[in-house]
């Protein structure tokens, strides 16, 4: 006869309520683990979807995600000409916040060369961008409809397709436009600013007495054109030809001393160790605190439940019950509570994880690990009750 199950059956209301409470706590622990994995997945989403071997950025920067990086778009031709590079494509990234339905609306805009790579990873509705201008593919998480227009900078952009879950390192959903559109949105000055800038150059040149007026006018035109150019990108990504040596290609690109070629592994380290390290530690600390709280709660519950059963335990001892029967009853109850609470917590997160504002990634290894930890906590927690039970004297069964 299983005394633990009989006790639970008799006190099922109390047991279920306790397990639900503990389950909610474990649900939070599971979600913390999921958020931690989600941080990784988010941080690496664009990196993984781009599927490049090398990220060429401005020298002495950790761009384009961790730091700002600006390089000329036409570098793509020089990168492509490096031996070992199969293809190269420029990319532009920027975080945009606009007002939509009276609320702040934040997303990550990626500009890509329509003839290169680094565009949307897969279209789940609608189509990919076909025209060079004013078309957009948005991540599903942006909750835009196909055909919807969204104003960015000086133009309206029409959503022509939806892609899956692509987000920035900070978890903002991503949208894709052509590179030239992205450059316009990021770098194009409005007409007032251009007129003002041109007037300042003309005024500066007017004060140069050695310059003839014709030369000054020509110089002003050249200077303005350079400043008004939008042909700047944040990175040029490259894929290597089969058999090409990554280190060698990096060394060749490094020789141009104004560039830094970052491998995917290095970029991963920048993103994970640098950008999300603190968040990871914070979440880890929260998990430890919550698991400690769970352990204390389980210990208290098991201890209280043992105190409630002192007379039962004394009676069992008096009628000759072996210690293993009593230890088994307490340990099984503790473990069963852990299993049920874990199941409730897991079920809760499984039903709700898609509704969390940040991505939750549940990995089988993490879940198994947490289950083992919960079982260990339950076992250790039950020692408090077992210690108390073993001290109970059979004589305590006597008397009123």
């Amino acid at each position, binding site marked *: *006869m299983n*005394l633990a199950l*009989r*006790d639970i*059956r*008799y*006190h099922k209301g109390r047991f279920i309520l306790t397990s639900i409470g503990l389950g909610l706590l474990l649900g939070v622990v599971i979600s913390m683990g999921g958020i931690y994995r989600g941080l990784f997945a988010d941080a690496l989403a664009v990196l993984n979807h781009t599927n490049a071997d090398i990220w060429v950025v401005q020298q002495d920067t950790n761009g384009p995600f961790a730091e700002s990086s600006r390089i000329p778009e036409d570098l793509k031709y020089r990168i492509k000409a490096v031996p070992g590079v199969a293809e190269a494509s420029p990319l532009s990234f920027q975080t945009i916040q606009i007002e939509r339905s009276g609320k702040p609306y934040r997303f990550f805009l990626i500009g890509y060369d329509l003839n290169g790579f680094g565009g949307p990873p897969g279209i789940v509705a609608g189509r990919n961008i076909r025209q060079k201008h004013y078309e957009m593919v948005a991540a599903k998480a942006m909750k835009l409809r196909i055909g919807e227009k969204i104003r960015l900078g000086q133009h309206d952009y029409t959503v022509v397709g939806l892609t899956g879950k692509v987000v920035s390192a900070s978890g903002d959903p991503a949208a894709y436009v052509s590179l030239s559109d992205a450059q316009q949105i990021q770098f194009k000055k409005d007409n007032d600013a251009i007129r003002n800038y041109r007037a300042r150059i003309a005024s500066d040149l007017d004060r140069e007495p050695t310059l003839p007026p014709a030369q000054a006018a020509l110089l002003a035109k050249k200077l303005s054109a350079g400043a008004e150019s939008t042909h700047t990108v944040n990175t040029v990504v490259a894929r290597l030809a089969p058999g090409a040596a990554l280190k060698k290609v990096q060394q060749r690109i490094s020789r141009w001393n104004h560039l830094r070629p970052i491998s995917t592994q290095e970029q991963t380290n920048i993103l994970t160790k640098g950008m999300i390290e603190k968040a990871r530690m914070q979440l880890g600390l929260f998990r430890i605190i919550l698991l400690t709280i769970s352990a204390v709660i389980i210990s208290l519950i098991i201890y209280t439940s043992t105190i409630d059963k002192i*007379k*039962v335990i004394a*009676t*069992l*001892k*008096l*009628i*000759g*019950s*072996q210690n293993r*029967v009593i230890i088994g009853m307490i340990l099984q109850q503790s473990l069963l509570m852990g299993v049920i609470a874990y199941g409730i917590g897991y079920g809760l997160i499984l039903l709700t994880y898609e509704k969390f504002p940040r991505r939750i990634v549940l990995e089988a290894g993490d879940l198994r690990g947490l289950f083992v930890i919960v079982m260990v906590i339950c076992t250790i927690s039950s020692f408090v009750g077992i210690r108390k039970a073993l001290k109970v*004297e*059979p*004589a305590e*069964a*006597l*008397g*009123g």
Partner: protein
Amino acid sequence: MYAVEVEKLTKIYGSGDTAVTAIADATLQVKPGELVAILGPSGSGKTTLLTSIGLINEPTRGKVIIDGVTVADQGWLAGVDLKRLRREKLGFIFQAHNLIPFLSALENVMVALEINGISSSEAKSRASELLAMLNLGHRLQSYPSSLSGGEAQRVAIARALANKPKVILADEPTAALDTENGKNVMALLKKLAVENHSAILVVTHDHRMVEGFDRIFQVNDGRIMNENRQ
């Protein structure tokens, strides 16, 4: 052979100036099938005597022999498995029935059998039989909280009898019952002592319940003052 033999049993609590003698030089023998009362006021030492015979309370001096096995001689004897002896040779009945609240009447009796190594199916059939014999066949699945005082005490008696013990020790078994139910329980114990050939020792301070005992030991201030045969 006696079912219970106690020779010059002494139990002293504490030591030095604070030592309290709960039982002093108690000697008694009980034969199988005998129903014996240990009568005395509160604090007289009757429960100490019962718990020493019940292998719960280690005597300071003297001998305790259960069904021919010497278990104590100036303290517990080494090599004696007290738990096993309690399981196999002793049955206990308590003042407040002490049924396990989360087990049904049937399971409360079964648990005593299963602890003694009886298989679940056999325990079930033996427990059902015992409860039926005590007119509780209709209450097998009832929990202690839904049983009357008399019914609960009969389930406790069934549990004490489950392993066919040589000795049944009852500590104030009628204290929580009204007079009628108390008399019924005593009559039942008398019947069982004869039918099962068990020695039954009942501790009580209730003089109303002393009818029907074969012998009565009067205990006062830790000493057996006299023995009355009925």
